[in-house]
């Protein structure tokens, strides 16, 4: 799965939890879930669970702590997928 594919999938996951349609359209590495997408932290938990389900990975507390931007989330998904493959 390429980085672009991961971001596209992540966008699908995030969309139901954000009303910031313009920020969602221009989603990139630097997009911040709270500041840019105005996602409520109670829904950040949903995003963590959705990412676990969709990418078949387990996100530990230390990784979850960093999941505030698209870049950090993609990095976590990529490293957990590598762990799974290895």
């Amino acid at each position: 799965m390429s980085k672009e594919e991961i971001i596209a999938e992540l966008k699908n996951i995030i969309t139901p939890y954000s009303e910031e349609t313009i920020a969602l359209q221009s989603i990139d590495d630097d997009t911040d879930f709270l500041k840019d997408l105005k996602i409520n932290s109670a829904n950040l938990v949903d995003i963590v669970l959705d990412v676990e389900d969709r990418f078949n990975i387990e996100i530990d507390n230390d990784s979850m702590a960093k999941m505030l931007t698209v870049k950090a989330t993609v990095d976590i998904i990529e490293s957990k997928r590598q762990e799974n493959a290895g």
Partner: protein
Amino acid sequence: MLGNDIVDLKFAKLHYNWRRKGYLNKIFSARELELINSSKSEDTMVWVLWSMKEAAYKCYNRLTSERLFNPQAFECALFSSCTNSASGVVIRNGQTFFTKTEISKNYIHTLAYSGTLVLDHLSVHHHKNNAEYSVAFTDSTNYSLQKDKNHLPEVINKKTQQKHMASISHDGGYLCIAFLKV
């Protein structure tokens, strides 16, 4: 330090599904889960503890500028709780934050504070969650709202021009402003 957090219970019911598998385990410790399980109203206890963590996070963030999504690292303990209020502490990295929670039919609001602050120093104002809240706040109090140099909210006493720390939380239809009045 000061932080607050409000949960709109009707909004929460529609948008935050804490009964989802795995959800509570991402947020709460075994001891906190026990508090929830043994509570008369699980729904209320989930949001009481959640708002304690969020309010304490805001205090901690003000102290350290640390920005992490780590609700498990904020451990809650309750001194007392009844149908309309709860008080307790949240501990993060050896730092203690005292909390006072108001429980109503429609919302749950927690104030967290630390250091030399006491409840008597704090004032809480409820508003509708809309773009006019800042004007509504200024019109109904002796204070006006602005951001400090770190982009955190503060109030200014309109008479004395004295500035005080403030915290703003909104959820669903509710918005709550907490500030130091002395």
